[in-house]
């Protein structure tokens, strides 16, 4: 009876969680699709290499060794716990107990492999515990500067704490489950860490241990489902998106900024008056120069925004931020994502159609003009990002819109543009004096 009740409950909870998770991930996917097309499929070999090295191999993390090692604990722990999760899942839908163990119990090689795997999960879990506590310590006690910037106030900091605490909760569940199981079976499984922990419970009754095992088991599984549903609302989505994001990262030199073809066309017409302009499509929407809102950005910028881990490595390296300017490349990514969420929700509420809400990504509580103006285009943020995000690319597209559509430039830039147009130099020197240096 109890067995069938558990199977029933398991399937029900799984189905509910999958439904909500599906909606969450679909939302993220649909929102990313609001971006402009950009082809990023050339050189697949190089792309696979980036993904393997940077996402899977965590290459860029190792620029800062301490957080890299701590993060590696969590990452490896996360990866190998998936093996145990497979057994939890099989047990859940079949109503069995340690189905894989029993299948291999009498096969010495496979049995050793199984015990070895679960033992390494246990050891990894201890490392995860150390990593998690260290992360909480760094963020809330040491107050590492990049983890305590104004853009993290409110939900972001709560999000970070939630995941770290959930991590500890999951570890407690895993160890309760394994330890009680070991104690119930006189340690016959021989798992590395719980064989030590079980000694703490030697005087517990059979019933208490069974309850403890069940609580651990269910707690673990429910925690995992919760994580799955929560992920698309959290910066922790990077554990999935880091892979596509590194794969689709731009392969051009960091100094390269794309040339706008629509402007080339216009200037070529100006330079060659005999050329006939292509007939204008009267129904075409007026072209927008640069980006004012999230839909003007490329899908890759939007994928970047959802991939951002809010780690602040970019901001810590940003010369403008370092010297007290408002610009923070992390905030550029967070604002892009938050505005995208707002636009996505408005579209969903309006039956799938976008109705202008009078706001945009610039100002309106999002990225301010002051921030955009402070960027030196130094690429430090791009270089630092462990998941190959480019905050700079968004900054430049927004700047284009400010200058070319809004004519919103500081006075010095306006005269710089005029000088460039009239004298071919950003300063007011005559073109005729270009060679004067040779006469000194």
């Amino acid at each position, binding site marked *: 009876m109890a067995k069938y009740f558990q199977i029933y409950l398991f399937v029900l909870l799984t189905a509910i969680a999958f439904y909500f998770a599906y909606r969450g991930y679909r939302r993220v996917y649909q929102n990313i699709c609001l971006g402009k097309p950009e082809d990023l499929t050339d050189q697949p070999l190089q792309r696979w290499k980036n993904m393997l090295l940077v996402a899977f191999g965590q290459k860029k993390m190792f*620029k800062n060794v301490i957080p890299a090692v701590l993060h590696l604990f969590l990452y490896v722990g996360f990866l190998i716990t998936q093996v145990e999760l497979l057994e939890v899942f099989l047990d859940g839908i079949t109503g069995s107990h340690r189905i894989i163990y029993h299948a291999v119990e009498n096969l010495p090689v496979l049995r050793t492999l199984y015990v070895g795997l679960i033992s390494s999960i246990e050891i990894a879990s201890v490392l995860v515990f150390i990593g998690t506590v260290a992360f909480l310590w760094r963020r809330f006690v040491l107050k590492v500067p990049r983890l305590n910037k104004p853009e993290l106030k409110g939900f972001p900091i709560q999000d970070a704490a939630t995941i770290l605490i959930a991590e500890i909760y999951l570890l407690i569940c895993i160890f309760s489950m394994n330890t009680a199981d070991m104690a119930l079976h006189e340690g016959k499984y021989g798992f590395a860490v719980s064989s030590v922990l079980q000694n703490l419970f030697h005087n517990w009754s059979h019933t208490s241990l069974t309850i403890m095992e069940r609580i651990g088991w269910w707690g673990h599984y429910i925690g995992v489902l919760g994580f799955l549903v929560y992920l698309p609302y959290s910066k922790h989505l990077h554990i999935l998106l880091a892979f596509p994001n590194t794969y689709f990262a731009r392969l*051009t*030199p*960091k*100094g390269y*900024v794309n*040339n*706008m073809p629509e*402007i*080339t066309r216009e*200037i*070529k017409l100006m*330079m060659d008056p005999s050329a006939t302009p292509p007939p204008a499509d009267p129904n075409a929407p007026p072209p927008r120069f*640069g980006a004012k809102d999230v839909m003007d950005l490329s899908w890759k910028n939007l994928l970047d925004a959802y991939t951002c881990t809010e780690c602040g490595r970019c901001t810590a*390296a940003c*010369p*403008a931020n*370092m*010297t*007290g*300017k*408002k610009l923070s490349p992390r905030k550029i990514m967070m604002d892009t994502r938050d505005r995208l969420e707002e636009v996505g929700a408005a579209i969903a509420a309006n039956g799938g159609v976008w109705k202008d809400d009078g706001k945009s990504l610039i100002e309106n509580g999002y990225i301010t003009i002051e921030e955009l*103006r*402070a*960027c*030196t*285009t*130094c*690429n*430090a943020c791009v*270089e630092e990002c462990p998941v190959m995000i480019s905050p700079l690319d968004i900054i*430049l597209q*927004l*700047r*284009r819109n*400010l*200058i*070319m559509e809004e004519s919103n*430039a*500081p006075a*010095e*830039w306006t005269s*710089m*543009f005029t000088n*460039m*147009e009239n004298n*071919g*130099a*950003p*300063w007011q*020197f005559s*073109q*005729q*004096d*270009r*060679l*004067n*240096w*040779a006469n*000194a």
Partner: protein
Amino acid sequence: MKIRTYAEYAAAGETPEILFWVGCAGSFDQRAQKVTRAFAKILHHLNIKFAVLGTEETCTGDPAKRAGNEFVFQMLALQNIEVMNGYGVKKIVTTCPHCFNILKNEYPSLGGNYEVLHHATYLQQLIDEGRIKLTDTDRFKGKRITYHDSCYLGRANEIYEAPRRVLEELDAALVEMKSCRSRGLCCGAGGAQMFKEDEPGNKRINIARTEEALETQANIIAAACPFCNTMLTDGVKSFEKQDQVKVFDIAELIAAGQGLENIVL
């Protein structure tokens, strides 16, 4: 020193080996002009046939592009490309990392395809080929040099070693700043910041970078960009250290090592 323009070469029916792209700073800024002259002296000394565009050169458009004015950028770029393609330019060397970056990365898709080198790389090649020999390095003995990575040479194009290899030729100790190479700190001039006031903050970026440079106890801060040069020179002045610490371009240091330039340390 006689500097010949591409037009003069063309009129004489000759083809120069390289086009020396001087850039706006190199043409007009008094400090940068010295770098231009030093580099031209090196080329002259080695009998390299080089041309400049002279009055036919205009700004590459970099500050406009980075500020967001694609229109002004492309106008200048297409104009420059027309001139250079007209002369059949094949190889460009420039002393400005901003010009280098934009000519190399952004001109091709507008129809300007050239082999583009920054002078750090070019000088390194000349050294490797044994064409540059330093005979006058006494003044560098016992001095400390720290190299400041320009963002547009470094992170933007991953050229970190060439300028350092060039500096190794001088008989001085090369010391690194706290942040260097891919983590080098910006001087604060890029992205058209050079041409406007800073946004409100608590420090100027060039001051932050100069602090790092001064911490190394270097006697010379070596730059490879006219804008970095200005920013760091200003920074050193604001600490009133201009008598002890000098900012020089790598071309000036090499020219001095060749005995072509008389720099005062």
